[in-house]
């Protein structure tokens, strides 16, 4: 079947077709860094106006309009403190791998966006908080940054403008919570990555208690295109309240997993069946997680839902980080709930009691349900625990566990009930998620043998 026009709009990856855009020379051949040159000749406020006109919403998960976020910062000449830009490259929401491909294939596009955004807010220093596990991507971005430095695109006196920008890559070390912006700032300051209480928001008091703009990798990579097209024209792509394209990470039981850039408003069905080739091994679609493991699930008959913020909200879920996880008819929804809850229990930073204790309770009750040892009352207790987590913590991590699990029960209650009624899993060991070993259940005795300790 022919793809829709929306599914063929590739604002970011289109330029990379048949080219190695990790190299500065090739990136420049397709107009690379022209948007930076253009923006340096414009008033800061005029560049910001373009971002506001584009109505581009954050691509990290929360979907907050990027231009508005930037407009919350004090003006450079009115700020008593230095202003910082931080790129959030700590992608770790389960199911999400789009920023990784952007960093690996479009590092200069990302850097160009980062430099433009830094200039807009008047920052002289920017940090890239890069997920620790992304070693190959670190090397690519580091090398691209070095190329950009040598070409005068980053560093002192950027392109002769008289404006300086230093960029430091700060590598994470394995903690999902550091993708949450205030935890990220703590980690960048050399602390345990525990979220801060808000307000004050980072725009007023971010890293080193200074005004800070934090943007996701994909959001920043979109900035050069916005300036190239003009904000108003960019805003016409997509649908209302969801301008432009997004890179969706497709995974699970599909034929062709991978990243697909499409215009917002493209249907979930087109992504899964036309681009993704449909359900693998000729199985039947059971459920879809549309925005990373933290969002409520959709059932197979909701597959026509358009991929945009408002349509997902109308279905009681979210576009989140753009991670679409597909499950076929072999997936036990209790096991799914257990595995998702285990992840958030593992990643809870422990600061807020409802999240720290609640995720642990969720895992323990879900384990009992799966093993057929739960009483009827414990299913209600599980929902009660979810309810007591929701909205009661400093950051959304607790919600990220409670929301999806509550949705699995709401939409697949009969399956949960069968576990209780039948005293065990109706899949009888045949579910795809049967007995998966989660890190939270892994024995911590890492050492089996006596290993010689260096003197």
């Amino acid at each position, binding site marked *: 079947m022919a793809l829709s026009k929306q599914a063929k709009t590739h604002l970011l990856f289109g330029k990379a077709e048949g080219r190695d855009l990790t190299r500065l020379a090739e990136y420049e051949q397709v107009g690379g860094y022209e948007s930076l040159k253009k923006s340096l000749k414009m008033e800061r406020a005029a560049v910001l106006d373009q971002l506001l006109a584009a109505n581009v919403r954050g691509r990290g998960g929360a979907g907050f309009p990027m231009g508005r976020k930037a407009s919350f910062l004090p003006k450079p000449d009115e700020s008593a403190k230095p202003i910082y830009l931080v790129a959030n490259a700590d992608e*770790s929401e389960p199911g999400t791998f789009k920023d990784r491909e952007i960093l690996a294939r479009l590092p200069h596009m990302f850097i160009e966006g980062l430099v433009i955004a830094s200039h807009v807010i008047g920052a002289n220093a920017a940090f890239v908080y890069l997920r620790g596990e992304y070693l190959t991507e670190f090397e690519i971005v580091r090398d691209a940054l070095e190329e950009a430095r040598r070409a005068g695109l980053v560093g002192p006196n950027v392109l002769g403008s008289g404006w300086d920008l230093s960029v430091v890559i700060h590598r994470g070390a394995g903690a999902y919570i550091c993708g949450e912006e205030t935890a990220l700032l703590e980690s*960048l300051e050399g602390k345990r990555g525990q979220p801060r209480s808000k307000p004050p928001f980072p725009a007023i008091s971010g890293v080193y208690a200074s005004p800070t703009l934090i943007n996701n990798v994909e959001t920043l990579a979109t900035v050069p295109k916005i300036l190239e097209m003009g904000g108003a024209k960019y805003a016409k792509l997509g649908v209302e309240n969801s301008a432009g394209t997004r890179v969706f990470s*497709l*995974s*699970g*039981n599909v034929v062709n997993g991978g990243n697909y850039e499409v215009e917002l408003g493209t249907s979930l069905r087109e992504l899964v069946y036309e681009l993704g080739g449909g359900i693998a091994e000729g199985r039947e679609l059971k459920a879809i997680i549309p925005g990373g493991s933290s969002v409520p699930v959709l059932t197979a008959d909701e597959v026509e839902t358009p991929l945009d913020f408002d349509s997902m909200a109308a279905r009681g879920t979210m576009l989140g980080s753009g991670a679409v996880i597909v499950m076929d008819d072999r997936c036990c929804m209790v096991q799914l709930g257990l595995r998702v809850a285990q*992840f958030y229990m593992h990643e809870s930073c422990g600061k807020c009691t409802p999240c720290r204790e609640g995720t642990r309770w969720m895992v323990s009750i879900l384990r009992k349900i799966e093993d057929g040892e739960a009483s009827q009352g414990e299913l209600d207790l599980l929902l009660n625990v979810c309810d007591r987590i929701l909205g009661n913590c400093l950051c959304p991590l607790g919600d990220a566990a409670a929301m999806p699990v509550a949705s699995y029960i709401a939409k697949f209650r009969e399956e949960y009930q069968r576990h209780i009624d039948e005293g065990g899993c109706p899949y009888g060991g045949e579910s795809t998620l049967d007995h998966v070993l989660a890190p939270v259940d892994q024995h911590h005795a890492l*050492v089996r043998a006596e290993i010689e300790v260096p003197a």
Partner: protein
Amino acid sequence: MASSALYDEIQELIARYPQRRSAVMPALRLAQEKYGWLPPDAFREVAEALDVTPAYCRAVASFYDMFHLDPVGRHMIEVCTNVSCALVGAQQVLEAFESELGIEAGQTTEDGEFTLRTIECAGGCGWGTVVSVDHRYREPVQPEDVGAIVEELRSGPE
């Protein structure tokens, strides 16, 4: 100790940041590269170079999964068992490694060559199962690929 190579490298890290404490994570990474894990001496060295306490460094390190507070094998094999990988057979891949190496997830082989562990989502979900071998991703890995991966590491260059 104040003149060690590690001390000097940490001073360079400190210079990158407006506040020296920001260098604690990159400093711990350097120390881990030197020792293979983070023994008490590593914390003492990092602490001295950064002018903080060893306990502070340990508190930071213990928060992050990539810092090892116990010795690990020379090769680190990490299998993602989060939802997307699990849906396409991550548990079977993990079990193939367990069987090939003769250890359980979370353990290190007797000869100190391999540590095997499960990890949470590595960010390669569309190409599962993702296995990180010495911090380089192999994707997708099927159970039948496991023998060759282990063999490659056993016979590989030092």
